[in-house]
């Protein structure tokens, strides 16, 4: 479960990136985070993972305040950053072992999980190669594997489907659904409205750092009858 209470973040003392944002992602939910470029999506996700410190407000991961007990909160998070170009000099298996050691995963468990993910994302042939030789899509699959290898209950994913081939994207969406159905929470940002529409239990629309809508797609369409999600989104964010 993720709870954000009255979170505000300002850059350089004058650019308000996120303004008094409050939201809750309950266990068993997939929540899609949509908004125009520069709306505050990545900033919010970074505050949830401890990368950025909010100026005001609190973030709780499974009830743990990430500012007060950062290590405990971070242990529960699986995070995919917006760029997969990370530690490219390491081999895939070295990177996964690094992450496994940092999250303190026992030998037998990590072997089993790495094998499962590698098969699911067709990475088995490249685990022994340095990641700088990977394509963008393969790097993204490696980031997904690394984010999930410690079996976190909270998934925070920044544009996780970018660069994935259709099969891997399908796999990841399926995993997100399975994860939520198992009573965990998934929050992900996307610019692909169809994905949000099909996959999410709830949607957050953010604009100028303010959540202008948070609820189910049904609730949204009730407010704007005769319009599809794309039209509603464009209407709500026309001043972006």
């Amino acid at each position: 479960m993720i709870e954000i209470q009255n979170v505000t973040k300002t850059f350089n003392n004058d650019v308000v990136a996120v303004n008094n944002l409050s939201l809750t992602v309950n266990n068993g939910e997939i929540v899609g985070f949509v908004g125009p470029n520069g709306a505050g999506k990545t900033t919010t996700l970074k505050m949830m993972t401890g990368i950025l410190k909010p100026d005001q407000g609190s973030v709780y991961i499974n009830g743990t305040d990430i500012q007060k007990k950062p290590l405990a909160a971070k242990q529960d998070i699986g995070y995919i950053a917006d760029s997969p170009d990370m530690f490219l000099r390491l081999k895939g298996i070295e990177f996964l072992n690094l992450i496994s050691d940092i999250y303190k995963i026992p030998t037998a468990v990590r072997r089993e999980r790495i094998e499962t993910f590698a098969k699911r994302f067709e990475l088995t042939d490249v685990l022994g190669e340095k990641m700088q030789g990977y394509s963008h899509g393969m790097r993204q699959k490696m980031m997904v594997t690394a984010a999930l290898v410690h079996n976190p209950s909270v998934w925070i994913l920044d544009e996780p489907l970018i660069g994935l081939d259709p099969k891997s994207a399908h796999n990841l969406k399926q995993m997100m659904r399975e994860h939520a159905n198992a009573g965990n929470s998934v929050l992900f940002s996307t610019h692909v409205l169809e994905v949000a529409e099909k996959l999410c239990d709830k949607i957050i629309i953010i604009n100028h750092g303010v959540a202008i809508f948070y609820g189910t797609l049904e609730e949204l369409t009730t407010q704007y009858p005769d319009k599809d999600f794309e039209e509603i989104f464009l209407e709500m964010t026309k001043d972006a």
Partner: protein
Amino acid sequence: MRSYLSLTKTFLAAVGMSKGQDKKRKILIICLSLFAGLFIMLPACFIAFLIMGMMTFSLMRSGSQAMGIELMLHIISIFTIIFGINVILNEFYFSNDIQFVLPWPVRASKLVAAKYTAAFFVENVMQILLVASCIAGFGMASRMSGIHWLYSLLGVLTLPLLPMAYCGILSILVMGFTRFIKNKDTMQRFSLSVIVLLLLAFVLGVGSLKELNVNNIIEAMVSGNFSFFKVMDVLFPNVHFFVKFFNEGDFLALLGYILVSLGAIAVMLALSEVLYFKGVIGLSSGSSKKELEGTSFLLAKSKEHSQVAAYLKKEILILFRTPTFFTHCILANFIWPLFVFAAYQLGIQTMTVADIFPKMRYYPQGADPINITFLKEAYTSGSIRVHLAILFGVICLSLIVSSMNSISSSAISREGKHFSFMKYIPMSYEKQWGTKLLVGIFFPALSFYLIFWPACIWFGIPLVNILFYTLISMVCILLPALTGISIDANQPKLIWDDELNALRENYNNFFSMSVAIGFAALLCITGYCLSKYLYVGITAIAWILFTLVIFLDLLFFLLAKKTVTKNIETQEEA
């Protein structure tokens, strides 16, 4: 012209120093800059000034004073090429902006001209200062008149144009005609091998110069038998023209200087029209060998380790596998023993100062013959001065060796775009920077003791003293590592085009080195004053200095604990 200026401005902005985020950080950077100026730039310039002045005095007797300044400017030109070649190659061919710039409708020569200008401004600050110091030394010694000082300004600002153009020509030719260097890593490994070979050749060459002394060099220069001069005059004709112009006011020489410098740039630009795109298209940033190990084999090797062990492995693998990091962080630790070896080859252990500088005007007459054999005997007989000199040597060397590499002073900057990794993993910041610090201590310590222990045995130092020197050098090695990581955490360069920029563009290594030199000066002056004015014994001085270093270590550890963690926590850009 407009597009050239815009491109130059863009490339210059990309290689600029990252800006401090708050007032405190900015003040610290200003203080560090002053420190660097005081302990590195000023001494280096002063030494250049002094050598030039002394050489000019000696040469004035035979009326060939200008030969000294020519020699120094030739040497500076050689170093401009050595340091510039990697910078130019990176700027021309391997910076990240290439992929965005290539599709633009810009001529190759314009692109190369803008990149050359950006590299020229970034690279040549130190060279310009050294040229100015040499000219000042020459001018003071030869009592140069006012107008000639004015003439010399031209060279101070433009002398590196030719060697930098040579770097450009060489890069364009190598990249245009070789297929195997289509990869950044291969290129860096290739250039590293060339530099190591040159260095080895230098060391072996120096070993054969048994007759090395300034007097011989001066005689050879005056008699016109100095072959180095003949070669250099062909390679860098601009130096000869420039010296002739500012020393004699010969405007024909000025014309020659301008023509030679601009000619080299024109050749570089003409070559770029033919070869630049051919060389730059199809470059890749890295390579990866296909491993034959199967998944089951790889998984069988996957075993649980502690967080620190895993993080340590990651740091070391990245340092070893990234050619630029390897050169500046690992190899840099093992360069100084080569110079010790060269000195040994020269037979320095049997030389005296008078052997090296036989006709120096200010050689202190009647002083002890300072050579290694004498020092060895004096040490064994318990000479306080020699014991003090060895103690100062150990302190200075361990401090400087530890600050020469960029491991600690780029510990945070190396993370670059994935700096956020440090912040979202469940591993405390203290553990993370502590592990980085460990790497920053291990490699300089390894290189230091590799030479130091055998040297102690050869010198006949008793075991108990070796143990003490080991102890004091250990705490000395820790000090620059602590200050280096503190400086880097305060002002990390997280947005960089290639690894070289991460190490060079915020001058953190330079700052760290200047702080280490400052500490070395402080400790030596303290020791000297205790001995000279308070008549404190050598054992007491050794323990006082040891305690002082421990105190400094503790102070900087506490400071690092507070500031590094806080700076990582508050650092937001990546």
